[in-house]
């Protein structure tokens, strides 16, 4: 039998203060970047035109820009896309229709002989109306996603557990968004989908650990131990499962990230980050918060008793 953990008994919960510091640091870094650099929204949300093209030979960005300037698109965003011969050009919303913009870009590139032959591989246009609607839909999706999970957690757990699990979810979402911002990746519809999946995944791990905690308490084998120890036992008992599952999902997302192609890159990035932070937050956000909350409540109760006695 191969085991990564032989009867693990690590003191996870005992070291939670170090983890709190780490969490707060990452959250601050993420929020800081979100505040200063902000998120780069994809045209799904801002509206605009995106053209993906492949050149016959490697072009210089300056060449592409000068060709586009001839048509008045000099201020467009030009990015290499997964391959040195492949580029995407992004334009903000303008009065011209999608047809005209895409055609003009095509003409501009065709008129620049130094660029060689180009193939237009993808054109996306999102009008202002649709962009606004997609924004709204995104907000609804996140909102309803959170509400759905909250309702489920409320039904399955006590109040403290539910709140702590939600805190863990927020932790994961902020870390993912923060890293998106730090790495300058784009917030698009698929990224949103990945984010929601991560929410589901993060809650998953938390549920597994909680289930174990309650099962142990129900059996009564934990009598006389502190709540922190009980939580630590539950985390340890489910540790190999947590790590193994996270590993398999981690493999899957890593493969998507490195082999899935440029189109899926940002989407896979969020999943990749989310799996890691989701596993971490189960122990160090959800688990630890419940422990400290319980200790705080018990401390006050004891304090009151002491006052009453005196």
């Amino acid at each position, binding site marked *: *039998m191969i*085991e990564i953990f032989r*009867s693990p008994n690590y003191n996870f919960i005992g070291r939670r203060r170090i983890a709190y510091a780490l969490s707060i640091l990452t959250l601050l870094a993420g929020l800081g970047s979100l505040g200063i650099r902000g998120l780069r929204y994809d045209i799904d949300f801002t509206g605009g035109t995106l053209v*993906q093209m*492949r050149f016959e030979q490697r072009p210089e960005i300056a060449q592409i820009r000068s060709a586009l300037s001839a048509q008045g698109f000099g201020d467009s965003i030009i990015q290499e896309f997964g391959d040195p011969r492949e580029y995407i050009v992004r334009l903000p919303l303008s009065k011209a229709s*999608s*047809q005209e913009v*895409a*055609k003009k870009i095509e003409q501009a590139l065709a008129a620049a002989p130094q660029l060689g032959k180009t*193939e*237009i*591989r*993808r*054109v*996306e*246009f*999102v*009008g202002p*109306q*649709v962009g606004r609607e*997609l924004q709204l*839909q*995104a907000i609804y*999706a996140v909102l*309803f*996603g959170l509400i*759905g*999970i909250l309702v*489920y957690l409320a039904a*399955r757990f006590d109040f403290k557990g539910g709140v702590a699990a939600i805190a863990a979810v927020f932790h994961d979402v902020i870390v993912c968004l923060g890293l998106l911002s730090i790495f300058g990746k784009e917030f698009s*519809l*698929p990224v949103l*989908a990945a984010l*929601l*999946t991560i*929410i*589901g*995944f993060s809650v*998953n791990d938390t*549920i*597994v650990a909680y*289930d174990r905690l309650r099962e142990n308490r129900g059996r009564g084998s934990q009598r006389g131990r502190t709540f922190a120890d009980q939580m630590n036992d539950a985390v340890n*008992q489910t540790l190999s*499962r947590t790590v*193994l*599952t996270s590993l*398999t*999902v981690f*493999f*899957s*997302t890593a*493969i*998507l990230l490195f*082999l*899935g192609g440029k*189109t*899926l890159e940002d*989407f*896979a990035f969020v*999943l990749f980050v989310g799996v890691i932070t989701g596993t971490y937050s189960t122990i160090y956000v959800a688990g630890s918060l419940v422990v400290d909350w319980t200790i705080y409540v018990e401390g006050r109760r004891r304090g009151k008793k002491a006052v009453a006695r005196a």
Partner: protein
Amino acid sequence: MPRNLWLRVGLVVLVIGISLWYLYPPKKRINLGLDLQGGIHLVLGVDTTKAVQNQAERAAEDFRAALERKGIGVKRVARDGDRAFVVELASPGSWNDALTVASQFQTFERRNSDQAAGRFLMAMADREAGQQADLATRGAVEKIRNRVDKFGVAEATITRQGEDRILIQLPGVQDPDRAKALIGQTGLLEFKLLDERTPADEALAGRLPETSEVLYQRRVDRESKQETKIPYVVVKRTLLTGNELTDASVQADPNSPGNWQVAITFSASGAQRFGEITEQGVGRHLAIILDGTVYSAPRINERIPGGRAVITGQFTVDQARDLAIVLREGALPAAVSILEERTVGPSLGADSIRQGIIAIAASSVIVFLFMLVYYKLSGLIADIALVLNLVILLACMAAFGATLTLPGIAGIALTIGMAVDTNILIFERIREELKVGKTPRGAIEAGFNRAFRTIIDTHVTVLVTAAILYNFGTGPVKGFAVSLFVGLSASLFTAVFFTRLLFDMIYMGRRKVTTVSV
């Protein structure tokens, strides 16, 4: 052996059989999204406001004609706002006669009457305006469908979305510009006389009569590709429209080699009207206008009987052919504009499929090997369950006609990772029970039972998210939600029911079991 074992085996065989039946042959059974097979996704907005305006304008014209027929003097009849027109009589004396005319326009309500000034407003009823808007969208859907049919796109989807939107999906279209031009063109052909008393430069300076307007002709220089716009002053009144034509066909342009023209044939009534127009307009110029752009304005030399005309422009043969389709099918009842467009070229789609398959294959191999090495025989069972999971997942997509998109492929890769979670939960539990000293059979029993509650919990949370994604997502994201949802649902069957069955078959027989390979 447990009594119902064969029943369970039968159920599994049935599920596998149905799945394979739905999947064969695989290429035809799975719908590929536009991002994988290449094609155009368009959301068009129908300008229903404009359609209602047009209706109001037409009613105003009719009203003026009705007044004139009765010999009532008219000072002004003009559209006022989106859905009303104002009527001003030459003298208040004919007020009562005018009201009789007004009562014949039942879809309009008379408002703001000012008898002393001989003026009132005719406003379209709310219901009528709503109906007109609805008709415009419905008509546009129909016309576009006909055009696309004639253009020849296999498996095109053209559906109405909400009040005034049309969703168009054209898989595998090679020339997106051409398809968009064909679909988005209103195709309103109009014949109007030139206003030869107003010089173009006067008109451009804003000095032109209320009944005239400036329209442009576009000329593209073949060498420099420079576009020039030539202004024409035309009389606003439309004499004849494309509604009156019965046929349109493509011809070589005899006057300009290499260019093509579209010959049109009018219906009987249209031909008669065309004859009258040309008879009355001898010596003047008749502008042929398509969607507000002048194509030509030839001089009328004599009455043209027989109802034939040609539209010349600098058309290529494809452009002429598409214009002929548009004219034959008739103009859209209202202009449409592109609100959203996503075009993927076929080569990009092929690349995406290749990368997607690599990702799924690599992800499968790693997970398979991992399970096999870590859990031995039990791992093998989990791997078989995983294969079954993929088969059921694809079969469900085929059976429900769901579309596989690039994020959908990602969803499958992710499902592979998540589906084994269930088995890991069970196996870890079995190991624990064995450590506590349970017999192999007892451990298996307890492992499955204890893990079950947790399995349900983990599935519900992800299924909730997937359902929400499906509801709020569009296109590709929906595809992701579908494969995640179906994959996880299938994993409840494969990772719990099917795996348990294999365990029972191996360990629950009569022979003595001493170890569990887990």
